[in-house]
């Protein structure tokens, strides 16, 4: 809980909702007749609507990227380290838009919202979405907000994939594309992790084939396991060693299967708290969206061809200890841009926090990000 808001904090924020009634044709072949998106904005849109920045969230993210809802909140938004007055995404200069993606579980239409056709939650009937579907809905939100061109579209991890998709699908509608700790597609290893996470959820007896809402149940064990697994892959070996080592909670071995090592306690805590704030069907859906992302697949697996028509200037950032989306994966994006003689800068940040580093205020990362955004603002 903040006693007082820091001067570089966006302060108290409110959630806005937009209802879309134009049917949305999805990549899976189905059509959503209507849907709602919730979003937050920080900063002021200028007269020419030229200072808007779109934030795309990652797997477990949402629209609450910065600030607090009330002075009683324990934590600010998930990317508060980067969004605020004087921060890399400077709200004194930019109008920042952050939404909860379609299929999410924080207010936008998704598996846990009511399907108007059945008056029941969508549950497993909610269509599986692609990154391109998401970007399409984000473009519609931009229309509503009167933003014909983003100064920048920014995202980390799965958010970075959305930023990349923006540059491909709507080349004229963004000036800068900032892709952080992302990849042009998942590797087999990455899909494998997602599959284990999905199996944990699908095989939970409380899952009820996705209709758990009707049974007043939650597949807690499955979702918790999925999150625990995910969390391991977001940290690095070094980060875990530094944070926990082999430290024992009670200082001695108990020769049992209860929590003994600190790392076990931490993972269980992370898993449990995730269950309280996330929906299992959304988790399944988002991991599928991740698995499907592969813009090169429509160009004979040639990423350079997929990026041939982009117009945005790029900043690509990776982190040395990120093994989920390693620097080599970011370099694939950079190489495809170089092949096309596109404008791109690339920074590989030395950090031991693994994939999670993109959320941390690492000094060199913050300076690179801030310097780049200053140029975006001054253009």
């Amino acid at each position, binding site marked *: 809980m903040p006693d007082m808001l820091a001067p570089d904090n966006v302060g108290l924020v409110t959630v806005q909702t937009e209802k879309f009634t134009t049917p949305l044709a999805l990549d899976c072949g189905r059509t959503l007749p209507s849907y709602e998106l919730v979003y937050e904005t920080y900063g002021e849109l200028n007269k020419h609507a030229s200072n808007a920045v779109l934030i795309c969230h990652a797997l477990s993210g949402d629209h609450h990227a910065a600030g607090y809802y009330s002075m009683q909140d324990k934590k600010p938004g998930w990317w508060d380290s980067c969004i605020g007055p004087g921060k890399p995404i400077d709200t004194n200069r930019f109008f920042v838009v952050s939404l909860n993606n379609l299929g999410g579980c924080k207010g936008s239409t998704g598996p846990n919202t009511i399907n108007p056709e059945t008056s029941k939650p969508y549950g497993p009937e909610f269509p599986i979405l692609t990154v391109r579907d998401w970007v399409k809905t984000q473009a519609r939100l931009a229309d509503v907000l009167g933003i014909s061109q983003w100064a920048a579209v920014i995202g980390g991890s799965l958010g970075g994939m959305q930023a990349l998709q923006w540059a491909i699908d709507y080349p004229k509608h963004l000036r800068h594309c900032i892709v952080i700790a992302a990849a042009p597609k998942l590797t087999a290893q990455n899909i494998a992790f997602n599959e284990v996470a999905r199996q944990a959820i699908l095989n939970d007896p409380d899952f009820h084939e996705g209709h758990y809402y009707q049974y007043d149940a939650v597949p807690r064990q499955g979702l918790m396991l999925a999150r625990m697994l995910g969390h391991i892959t977001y940290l690095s070996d070094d980060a875990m060693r530094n944070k926990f080592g082999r430290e024992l909670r009670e200082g001695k071995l108990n020769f049992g299967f209860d929590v003994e090592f600190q790392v076990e306690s931490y993972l269980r805590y992370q898993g449990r708290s995730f269950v309280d704030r996330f929906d299992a069907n959304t988790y399944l859906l988002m991991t599928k969206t991740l698995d499907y992302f592969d813009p090169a697949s429509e160009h004979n697996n040639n990423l350079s061809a997929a990026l041939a028509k982009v117009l945005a200037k790029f*900043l690509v950032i990776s982190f040395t200890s990120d093994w989920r989306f390693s620097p080599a994966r970011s370099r694939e994006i950079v190489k495809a841009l170089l092949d096309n003689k596109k404008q791109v800068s*690339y920074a590989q940040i030395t950090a031991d926090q693994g994939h999670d580093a993109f959320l941390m205020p690492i000094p060199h990362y913050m300076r690179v990000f801030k310097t780049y955004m200053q140029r975006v603002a001054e253009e």
Partner: protein
Amino acid sequence: MELRTDLALMSEWITEDSHVLDLGCGDGTLLTHLGECRNITGYGLEIDDDNLELCIEKGVNVIDTDLNQGLSDFNDDSFDYVVMTQALQTIHRPDLLLMEMLRVGKQGIVTFPNFGHWKVRMSLFLGGLMPKTRALPEDWYISENIRLCTLHDFEKLCNTLDIEVLQRAVVDTKHHSSWLMRFMPNLLGEIAVYRFRSKPVKIISK
């Protein structure tokens, strides 16, 4: 802003509207200058964190890269010029990098401190110590300059690698040049500047 003479020389050698790759681009001064006066496009490769930030500040496209890893991200013949200022002597295998430069670029331009300069020779000859000069100010054990060479060494390597030298200039550390320096470059030049390309393939006629 007054440009260092070696950089000014290089910008004269580079034609308008070309696509340039700058290996070890530092704070992006050369690329900024070439963009303004020659309307070039291109990228800088740099590994130092501070320099990377300075490049971004200038709006130079900079790619965080260790030059010792080669230029595998770049396709053959994708640049008109590949330039490298004061970095050749810091590379583990300069011969391989020179070949890489001419794989991805039509021409190469390098600058490096001349180890044949008379002060270097005197220091070694009279003092018996590794030279410390204006161009090579650091102690041998912390110096990043691990592959020092003279003008003659460089030209000999070019010959071995079938590289044709197109232009050569020498300057002092203040980046001035003089007729005397041009007369005895290997003895009096502190910094060497070379422009080169692969030797045209000879067609053997029967």
